């Protein structure tokens, strides 16, 4: 019997080539996209998924800022020490700090780029690294020890047996490999290749004027601190204890939220939530999951619509089977078998497409996504999705096909077969989805456009910047003069940080009224007298640094800092940074020194004539010659190092690259979903036009024009689209609000976006429908009447 079902299914597939091809194409595309989205979502959700991830937390700091709280993903050095020594619920506490000290590593004559980090040695236990070479007890035993991952050892030495071998950093400092561990997962926050001892940082405290040791430095938020608990349920208790310790020991205790100084963030949430646990990327994941649902629904709707619409073609066969003695159960089974066969075919084609398009997908997402159908969990997800859509889309058509009275059907009395209302409902749902997706695309692209074109409060055009090397910095004044003389360079300035994303912070500030209230954490930035004019920043009050010795006790605050301190008429008022007393000489208009996902925080600019980062305003002409000249100067001071520079414009765009990629992905998925939707609509209208052949024939004989026939066939869809728009607009408004929450600066959700999405859908649908409608209208009516 089963063989018979498959035989019939296969022959039907070949017989109705047009409709089946439409269905199959739509289904295959939808399944392909669905698989990609599942892989993407799974990858986003499996960030930091170490076996013991449930017990590992990042310690975020809750800092008082004005009247509010800011939560940072970083913490001070003592937190880990106290957590490890004084809190019994903590199994391991580990600090990590990315290594920015060295640029280049070399083994013999070969140079390498390696991502390095300073870590506490328990890092390897917490993240369960297997020791591939070396003795675990000797890992990072001193400041000259490093531990490598296996693939890094292979890269540097061609073997994992690298213990005892040496690596030179920046051609000066020699490090000895004391251990090799297995690689860390790429999809994690600790994906480094080389690990340095924290002793390097510890040693810098020897002559520190403010803090006696790294373990006593409560002022600098230099580390990402991870704690592994014996039991994840204890995180609140641990937080309480940490808060108590902080309040008791930190001289700046009042900087923190007094009842909850920290937030213990589960590490698998670090990529999708802010350090304070506020949803960030998770909204994008949710939106993509909705897109996944939409695409699959569209494909299922297509299948249901086309198979029920064509049910009348199968009535004869079903009736005969019933008359001969087939029971409803066996007929249901037959049609479900057909659906399973059809969906399986689509799934096989989709798998082929997934393999074919994986490289392109990886490029768009810039992720090394591993698509392996043999991977248990992934194939289980695919199988579940597959089963659900089969059940959803095969049962209804099967019931329709088996429900009619056999003799009526045989004699062509199909009144009970039309099921037009359900089909209309399903088409409306498809339109709802289309309108939603179009609105989504429009809002996302507008937001990205808004971010990249928003005036950040400074002029970033043609500004080149780079980090000076030590030897260059030793001759900063001369270097500055030489740079100024390069043709095409109109201004040169030094500052301590990148202006695009300045993540520095300190609570080491004071002002006249600060001991009573309003303590705050600020972003400090050392600049010279040329910085504000070069960046074309606006001073709202007071004046710029003059480049004279008294500037060392002058401060320029941004508007937010003035507001948060509550200082009235700030010019000339006292201010203190890093315990250096001085006065406020200027107020600079707020500018964005972090991603637009963040609000502008308080910033204090102080004077330092020769810091490490160089900013040059260049002219648009002859940029290449300017860069060559710069490089020549660089080589004079630092012949061994490559000259790395960037333009602010490019860095700014790079900062939003991830969002841009998400936007692109959404855009692609949307148009594919709409295409699949149109395929279904096309099939449906082709079928409707065929059914109405006779009616159209009679109307034409009676004098109907092509336009009137087209209108007849299109009118119905127009009404459905209007209904769909009414449903889709509030839903998409809500979803887009949700997505925009990730950004501190949001494009307005204008009413015309929603209206135009409706119009675009209408246009696409009418274009699809009218192709068939016009064809039907142009057909020779006599022929249609005769063939009926």
């Amino acid at each position, binding site marked *: 019997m089963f063989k018979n079902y498959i035989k019939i299914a296969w022959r039907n597939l070949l017989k109705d080539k047009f409709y089946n091809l439409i269905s199959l194409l739509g289904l295959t595309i939808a399944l392909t996209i669905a698989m990609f989205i599942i892989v993407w979502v799974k990858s986003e959700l499996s960030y930091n998924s170490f076996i013991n991830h449930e017990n590992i937390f990042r310690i975020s700091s809750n800092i008082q800022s004005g009247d509010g709280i800011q939560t940072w993903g970083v913490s001070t050095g003592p937190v880990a020490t106290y957590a490890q020594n004084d809190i019994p619920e903590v199994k391991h506490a580990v600090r990590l700090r990315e290594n920015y000290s060295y640029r280049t590593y070399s083994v013999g004559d070969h140079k390498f780029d390696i991502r390095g980090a300073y870590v506490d040695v328990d890092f390897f236990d917490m993240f369960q690294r297997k020791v591939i070479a070396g003795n675990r007890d000797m890992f990072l035993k001193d400041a000259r020890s490093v531990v490598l991952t296996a693939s890094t050892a292979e890269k540097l030495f061609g073997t994992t047996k690298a213990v005892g071998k040496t690596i030179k950093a920046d051609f000066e400092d020699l490090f000895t490999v004391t251990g090799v561990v297995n690689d860390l997962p790429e999809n994690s926050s600790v994906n480094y290749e080389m690990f340095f001892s924290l002793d390097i940082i510890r040693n810098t405290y020897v002559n520190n004027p403010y803090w006696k040791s790294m373990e006593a430095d409560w002022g600098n938020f230099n580390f990402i601190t991870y704690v592994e608990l014996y039991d994840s349920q204890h995180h609140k208790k641990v937080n309480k204890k940490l808060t108590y310790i902080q309040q008791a020991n930190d001289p700046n205790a009042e900087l923190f939220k007094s009842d909850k100084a920290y937030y213990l963030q589960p590490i698998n949430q670090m990529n999708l939530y802010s350090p304070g646990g506020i949803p960030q990327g998770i909204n994008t994941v949710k939106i993509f999951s909705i897109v996944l649902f939409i695409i699959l629904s569209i494909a299922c709707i297509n299948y249901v619509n086309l198979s029920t619409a064509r049910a009348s073609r199968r009535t*004869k066969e079903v009736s005969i089977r019933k008359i001969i*003695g087939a029971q409803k159960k066996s007929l249901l089974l037959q049609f479900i078998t057909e659906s399973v066969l059809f969906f399986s075919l689509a799934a096989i084609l989709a798998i082929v497409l997934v393999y074919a398009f994986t490289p392109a997908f990886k490029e768009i997402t810039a992720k090394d996504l591993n698509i392996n159908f043999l991977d248990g969990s992934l194939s289980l997800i695919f199988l579940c999705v597959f089963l659900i859509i089969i059940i959803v889309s095969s049962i209804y058509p099967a019931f329709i096909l088996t429900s009619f009275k056999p*003799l009526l059907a045989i004699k062509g009395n199909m009144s009970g077969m039309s099921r037009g209302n359900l089909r209309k409902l399903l088409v409306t749902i498809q339109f709802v989805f289309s309108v939603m997706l179009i609105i989504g695309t429009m809002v996302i692209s507008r937001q990205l456009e808004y971010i990249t074109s928003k005036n950040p409060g400074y002029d970033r055009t043609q500004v080149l910047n780079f980090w000076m090397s030590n030897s260059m910095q030793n001759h900063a004044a001369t270097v500055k003069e030489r740079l100024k003389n390069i043709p095409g360079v109109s201004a040169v300035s030094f500052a301590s940080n990148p202006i695009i994303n300045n993540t520095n912070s300190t609570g080491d500030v004071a002002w006249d009224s600060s001991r009573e209230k309003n303590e705050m954490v600020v972003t400090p930035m050392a600049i010279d007298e040329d910085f504000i004019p070069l960046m074309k920043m606006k001073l709202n009050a007071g004046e710029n640094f003059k480049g004279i010795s008294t500037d060392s006790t002058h401060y320029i605050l941004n508007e937010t800092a003035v507001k948060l301190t509550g200082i009235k008429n700030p010019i000339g008022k006292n201010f203190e940074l890093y315990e250096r007393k001085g006065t406020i000489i200027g107020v600079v208009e707020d500018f964005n020194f972090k991603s637009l996902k963040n609000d502008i925080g308080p910033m204090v600019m102080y004077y330092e004539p020769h810091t490490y980062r160089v900013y040059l305003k260049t002219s648009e002409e002859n940029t290449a010659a300017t860069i060559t000249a710069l490089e020549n100067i660089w080589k004079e001071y630092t012949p061994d190092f490559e000259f790395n520079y960037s333009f602010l414009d490019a860095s700014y765009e790079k900062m939003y690259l991830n969002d841009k990629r998400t936007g692109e992905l959404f855009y692609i998925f949307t148009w594919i979903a709409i295409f699949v939707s149109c395929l279904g609509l096309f099939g449906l209208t082709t079928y409707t036009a065929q059914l109405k052949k006779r009616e159209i024939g009679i109307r034409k004989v009676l004098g109907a024009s092509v336009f009137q026939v087209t209108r007849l066939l299109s009118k119905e869809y127009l009404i459905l689209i209007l209904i769909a728009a009414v449903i889709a607009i509030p839903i998409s408004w809500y979803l887009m609000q949700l997505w925009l929450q990730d950004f501190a600066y949001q494009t307005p959700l204008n009413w015309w976006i929603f209206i135009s999405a409706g119009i675009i859908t209408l246009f696409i649908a009418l274009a699809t429908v009218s192709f068939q409608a016009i064809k039907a209208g142009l057909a020779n009516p006599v022929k249609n009447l005769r063939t009926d």
Partner: protein
Amino acid sequence: MIKITDLEKFYRTEEVQTIAINKLSFEVKEGEFVSVMGPSGCGKSTLLNILGLLDDPNGGSYLFNGTEVAGFNERKRANLRKHNIGFVFQSFNLIDELSVFENVELPLIYTGVKAAERKERVHEVLEKMQIMHRRKHFPQQLSGGQQQRVAVARAVVNNPKLILADEPTGNLDSSNGNEVMDLLTELNATGTTIIMVTHSEHDAKYSHRIIRMLDGQKVTENILSEFKKRPKVEL
């Protein structure tokens, strides 16, 4: 074999009730060949559907081999149908997607006959109907007469006790029509009961008895030849 008493069937729309069968009673003996005649709309086809358990009567009694089947549910009806009744239609009603062999095989599949036996029985009946050479062809590749022979083969392959024929020659020319009628007569000679709805006086003459209907009621009954009960022969 069949006894109907005061059988009623009416169709109801929102406003009108149409009576298709009006208190109809008659009996058909096992091995008999009965024709039902009458103008279009007189209720012949409705009667055939009820007799074939494809439709429910609204009233009256229907005894099939002594069992009251008027109130049977769909499952019981399908079961009775597949083991006891074969159908032949005016428009052949073969499944276009199946070959001649597969069409004839279908009733055997639904009655759960094993594949080897199915093959044997289908071949046997196709030989008998003289269309063995066409077994791999699809319905559209056959003439009307051939299609109807396949339909008859399908109707008899399960060796049913009763064959219901709805204008079996209606779509055939006279020579093909005669062939089909000869086939039915042969089947009847082997003991199969046949009830045939027809417009053709010529075809009706092949039967033992003609029941004439009008407006859902029996008008007259003509006995054409004496019916003698013969034992049913297995095909």
